[in-house]
């Protein structure tokens, strides 16, 4: 039953993970279950202080390769079931499918020389990404990193946009609506207008190289108002200049940064990208390279780890958080083989690049 080389076992592992709900902040049961499963597959596994499950396979001298996915999901239930070669369930693609694929691949890659570290991180779906931050602070940077998110089994993600989440609040003395002084809700609207002006006319949520902006909320009246803005930032975006511009435009009130993470992007010649692409080719497909307009734990880790990295995992990312979330089992099993091949090839790819 615990033979990781068995596709049936790989599917059973994913189903058991889907059968255990794990919305953010409630990952404990799944983390403990996964620790037990990893030990049965030969990993040395433990739960760290953040609640992440960490499994290690020591296979002699060689690089340390970390595969990090997340075990939390957004809230909501999707009945777990098999239908026409698909497995349905909350987290099937985001990101228990990629996580289970990494766990199985680590165990299958017996030809890999070095150390495999597989991390199931908590709270990726929350603003703080506490699990990945804990790993970044407490784990030495590995030699290479694969982040588990649904790229699609034949695609590799090279990077993600960053994010700047802002909160504005202001209070003004009570006054008649016809008074000439600015009202609180007008000031909040003015910050939104100043943000649009600063970002320019070409904002986009579909282009990687342009900022995208969302007015998340705007509430208020004449005396009190608050607003939330979310900016998806391209590589090189100057967050401090943005904040300065907003504070100059609207000196009243308080503008706070709720969350900020920079964009990240590696090149196609990155050793991890090359190893994953070669493994995809070995499965008979033409590898696709993607950049994404959302964020993931790759952003969090890339802020301090200057190492080869990429994001990879099975699943259609348009089904993330969807009521119909499911994964094609053939794609999931193909991803297990791709990850196994990439792991085995990584030491060679790294030495070629250096």
């Amino acid at each position, binding site marked *: 039953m615990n033979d990781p080389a068995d596709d049936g076992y790989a599917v059973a592992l994913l189903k058991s993970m889907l059968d255990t709900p794990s919305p953010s902040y409630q990952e404990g049961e799944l983390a403990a279950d996964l620790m037990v499963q990893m030990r049965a597959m030969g990993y040395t596994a433990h739960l760290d202080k953040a609640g992440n499950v960490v499994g290690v396979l020591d296979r002699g001298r060689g690089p340390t390769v970390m595969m990090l996915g997340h075990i939390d999901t957004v809230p909501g239930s999707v009945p777990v079931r098999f239908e026409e070669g698909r497995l349905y369930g909350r987290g099937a693609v985001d990101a228990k499918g990629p996580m289970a694929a990494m766990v199985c691949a680590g165990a299958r890659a017996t030809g890999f020389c070095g150390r495999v570290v597989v991390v199931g991180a908590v709270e990726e779906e929350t603003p703080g990404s506490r699990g990945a931050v804990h790993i970044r602070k407490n784990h030495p940077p590995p030699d290479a990193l694969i982040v588990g998110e649904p790229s699609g089994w034949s695609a590799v993600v090279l990077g993600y946009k960053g994010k700047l989440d802002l909160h504005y609040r202001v209070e003004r003395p009570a006054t008649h609506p016809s008074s000439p002084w600015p009202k609180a809700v007008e000031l909040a609207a003015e910050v939104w207008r100043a943000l649009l002006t600063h970002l320019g006319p070409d904002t986009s949520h579909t282009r990687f190289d342009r900022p995208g902006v969302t007015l998340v909320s705007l509430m208020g009246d004449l005396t009190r108002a608050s607003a939330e803005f979310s900016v998806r930032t391209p590589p090189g975006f100057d967050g401090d200049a943005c904040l300065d511009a907003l504070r100059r435009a609207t000196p009243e009130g308080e503008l706070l940064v709720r969350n900020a993470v920079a964009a990240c992007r590696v090149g196609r*010649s990155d050793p991890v990208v090359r190893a994953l692409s070669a493994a995809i*080719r070995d499965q008979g497909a033409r590898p*696709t390279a*993607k*950049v*994404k307009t959302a*964020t993931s734990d790759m952003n969090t880790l890339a802020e301090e780890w200057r190492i080869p990295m990429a994001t990879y995992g099975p699943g259609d*990312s348009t089904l993330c958080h969807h009521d119909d979330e499911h994964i094609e089992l053939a794609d999931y099993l193909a991803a297990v083989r791709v990850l196994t091949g990439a792991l085995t090839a990584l030491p060679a790819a790294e030495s070629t690049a250096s």
Partner: protein
Amino acid sequence: MITCPECEGRVAAPEEPRVHEIVECAECRSELEVVGLDPLLVALAPEVEEDWGE
């Protein structure tokens, strides 16, 4: 050596080239895709796709 289809610069061929492998032209930084092995042929690699979501 192979010739870059963008700038006609000389590009070192991969030691063990494989179809769909990506190589970079050191002169113009173009990304090239191996599209044939015998003889070795390269073409400009497809653009990196931009995708919504995680």
